[in-house]
């Protein structure tokens, strides 16, 4: 992003209580609140390979273990590998016309590792057929897993049938007569086979412990080690299955796929950011960035800061929207925010109480084991309907302000953004009645504002001076296409802005 971010001098308070510079904030048009990365719901939008820029459907990505089938990274330095051609002589040296046979190998341009180093034979085709390494224990582990699955399955069925028996109102015929099913079977001469459900699956063959252990090789005491031939921990962990100890066992690793994320507001479930599907495109379908909707504050200059002395601070306001806005600077009311945090907690509590109450009412109807009401039915567990999000609890803003801002009495107007204005040389005439004490200068959609700030008297030399104020601006909502009343709706929106002014300097 070609946005000048610089040091984070000006920070905006997100609704969730975190302070972030404006490029990192989103503005949900539907709930008219600022959101940030922390308080939105992240979702995987599309999966692609970063090297070949190919979109991969999520089902396919899953089969390929989230790795690209064609691109490899270097097992030595983790950079991307390139396929290189090696031409062998013609198949038939006597026949000049016979085609030259081409073979391919993988090579790293950064560390000069190549697939030939580890003895992987050159491949006849450029795209594939690279040998894969298999887990040597796979058969045993699969066997163990299958038996465990069976055991758990039968246990579960047992539980369910127990439940059914308890609830059964009707006594079975054999129970009444005292003849059990197995006795009946014996009487009529059928072999006694236990019920399919009662049959216990055979447990897997347990592993056998050995008294012998791998001894330390004697050679380690005499032979010098070659550092270049021993793998580093990163190289080992790149291949978790085999974790090779020496470099000659390194195998090329498939490249990890990347994702495009879409972000969703948790309160209203609307997207605040949704990228385009094409991996080559850097554009977005929906992009509700805060710096497109909220006036931007930039720090221009400040007089040397001295404890207890009032100095002049100049900041620049820019209106990024297509609509005129009015900005009022208000006192930074942190108590109000704290109150909001408490309110949200209270709402959360009451909701929980209601939820608990409603659950209690439902209890006689549901299954006896309520704690795993969703657990007793795994199908419902896996296909839960889309539940509304839990809203991230806002926190208190922690930043300490140690500088007072004299709140100006008047407010000022910012004209809409006009992209052509930059090329317009004719001197601008504004008809705004500006308060000369407040506005120093203005140009197109920008205004330079003078504020009087006083760092607190108890500040020491070298302390960071932080001041803050609440900026109220008029946000013009164009989202619901105003059919009935042609006027777009206007809202007052408040943002808390924090400025780090610099350090206290010594007195004159």
């Amino acid at each position, binding site marked *: 992003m070609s946005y000048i971010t610089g040091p984070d001098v000006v920070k905006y308070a997100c609704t969730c209580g975190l302070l972030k510079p404006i490029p990192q904030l989103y503005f949900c048009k539907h709930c008219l609140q600022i959101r940030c990365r922390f308080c939105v719901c992240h979702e995987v939008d599309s999966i692609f390979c970063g090297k070949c820029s190919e979109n991969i459907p999520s089902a396919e990505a899953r089969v390929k273990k989230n790795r690209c089938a064609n691109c490899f990274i270097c097992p030595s330095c983790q950079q991307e590998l390139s396929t290189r051609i090696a031409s062998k002589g013609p198949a038939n040296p006597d026949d000049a016309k016979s085609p030259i046979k081409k073979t391919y190998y993988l090579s790293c341009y950064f560390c000069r590792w190549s697939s030939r180093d580890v003895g992987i034979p050159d491949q006849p085709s450029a795209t594939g057929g690279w040998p894969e390494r298999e887990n040597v224990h796979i058969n045993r582990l699969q066997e163990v897993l299958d038996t465990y699955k069976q055991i758990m399955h039968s246990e579960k069925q047992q539980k369910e049938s127990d439940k059914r028996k308890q609830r059964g109102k009707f006594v079975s015929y054999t129970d009444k007569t005292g003849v059990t099913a197995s006795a009946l079977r014996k009487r009529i001469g059928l072999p006694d086979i236990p019920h399919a459900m009662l049959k216990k699956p055979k447990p897997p063959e*347990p592993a056998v412990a050995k008294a012998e252990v791998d001894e330390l090789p004697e050679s380690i005491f005499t032979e*010098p080690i070659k550092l270049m031939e021993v793998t580093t921990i990163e190289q080992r962990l790149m291949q978790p299955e085999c974790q090779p100890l020496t470099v000659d066992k390194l195998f090329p690793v498939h490249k990890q796929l990347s994702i495009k994320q879409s972000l969703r507001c948790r309160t209203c479930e609307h997207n605040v950011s949704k990228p385009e599907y094409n991996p080559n495109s850097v554009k977005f379908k929906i992009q509700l960035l805060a710096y497109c909707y909220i006036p931007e504050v930039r720090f221009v200059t400040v007089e040397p800061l001295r404890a207890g002395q009032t100095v002049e601070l100049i900041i620049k306001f820019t209106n990024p929207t297509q609509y005129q806005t009015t900005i009022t600077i208000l006192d930074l009311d942190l108590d109000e925010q704290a109150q909001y945090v408490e309110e949200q907690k209270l709402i959360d509590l009451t909701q929980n109480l209601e939820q608990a109450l409603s659950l209690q009412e439902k209890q006689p109807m549901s299954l006896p084991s309520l704690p795993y009401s969703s657990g007793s039915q*795994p199908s419902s567990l896996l296909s839960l309907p889309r539940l509304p999000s839990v809203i991230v609890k806002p926190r208190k803003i922690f930043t300490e302000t140690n500088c007072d801002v004299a709140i100006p009495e008047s407010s000022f107007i910012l004209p809409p953004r006009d992209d052509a204005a930059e090329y317009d040389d004719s001197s601008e005439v504004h008809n705004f009645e500006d308060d000369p004490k407040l506005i120093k200068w203005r140009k197109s959609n920008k205004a330079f504002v003078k504020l009087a700030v006083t760092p607190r008297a108890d500040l020491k030399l070298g302390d960071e001076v932080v001041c803050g104020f609440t900026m109220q601006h008029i946000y013009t909502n164009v989202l619901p296409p105003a059919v009935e009343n042609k006027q777009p709706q206007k809202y007052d929106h408040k943002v808390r802005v924090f400025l780090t002014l610099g350090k206290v300097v010594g007195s004159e």
Partner: protein
Amino acid sequence: MPLYETLSTEKLIVVLDIGTAFTKFGFTSEFAPRYIIRSEVRCKKTNSLRRICDYNSPEDLYDLLVEFIHTIYFKYALTSPKDRPIVIVESLLCPTLFRETLAKVLFLQYEVSSILVLPSHLVALASLAIDTALVIDVGYKEAVTIPICYGLPIVQAWQALPLGGEYIHYNLKNLLSNCNTGIQNLSETVLEDIKIRCCFVTKSSRAKQLNLAKSEIVPPPDVKYPYAGAETLLVAGKIREKVFEIMYEEDNDHLCLSTMILDAILKVDIDLRQKLAENLVLIGGTVMTLGFKARLKEELQKQLLNERYQILNIKEFRFHSPPCKENYAAWLGGAIYGATDFLSMKAVSKDFYLREKHLPDWINLKDVTNMKLPDYTTRVL
């Protein structure tokens, strides 16, 4: 969520084993983790890497975990965590603050549908298909031994000592700065790399000689380790051999790795002792060091002669070799457990968490007395 994903029957379920140094991440019913990554996140303010275990406050830990889980899901798993179950493998001695914060992050920030928490010592036996063993987990921060008998962890017999990768690094740092003048602050990564590539656990017979002023043994060859671009660190042969010796140096309470294991055996019922001694399972990254197992066997045998352990009457120690690398043995157990119906039967659901506001734990009396709660230490077998 794309349409075809909802049509496919099985969902990918993440299995996570968050260690102090490395986090093992993968999916259920797979036999190796997809990634083993460092448990650290980049701090936004200072732009430096911070380890998760270095948190200063509960809020700080919450933020670190939010960031870390985000990387796991959106960089490696490539799925949304929302409305999916997750399997967490953790030590039985995991701090309550950590597990509660992790549950809070997963349920409230990432809205997972349920969490299945599995004790690492127990599930490590899943891949071996045995139900009684003495599990010794030597990780980064500490070495923890918990006996598992017939599928139940005997928690009262637990033993732990701060003998892990961290202590080895500390020792290595001291030894290296003694022998290389002018080099003081070696970073953790350099120390780890030297440890991994150069050091090993020596034999018991040589270890005795190491501490003598006049030793008859020839030290192994020195290694010149390239450091900070132009410099070279001299990793003397003696250091290579000596670094791991602190594991067997008895402290003031006469405790070391080998006594810890024997103490754990002493604390269980007399009938089980022999069986435990014949089923030793070593897990954790540190046990993968060259010569670790051989030396541990020698040391255990040596300690048996000690008067303290005469009553044990153990003849032989037997070691299991798991069908995987030791550093992800616990994770593999989690992946196996998570693939069965155990997940749907025992997981802590979101409803339950929102109502009770905590994760059931073996240490919490409220959970232990209330049998309706998901049984924390149940087993498959």
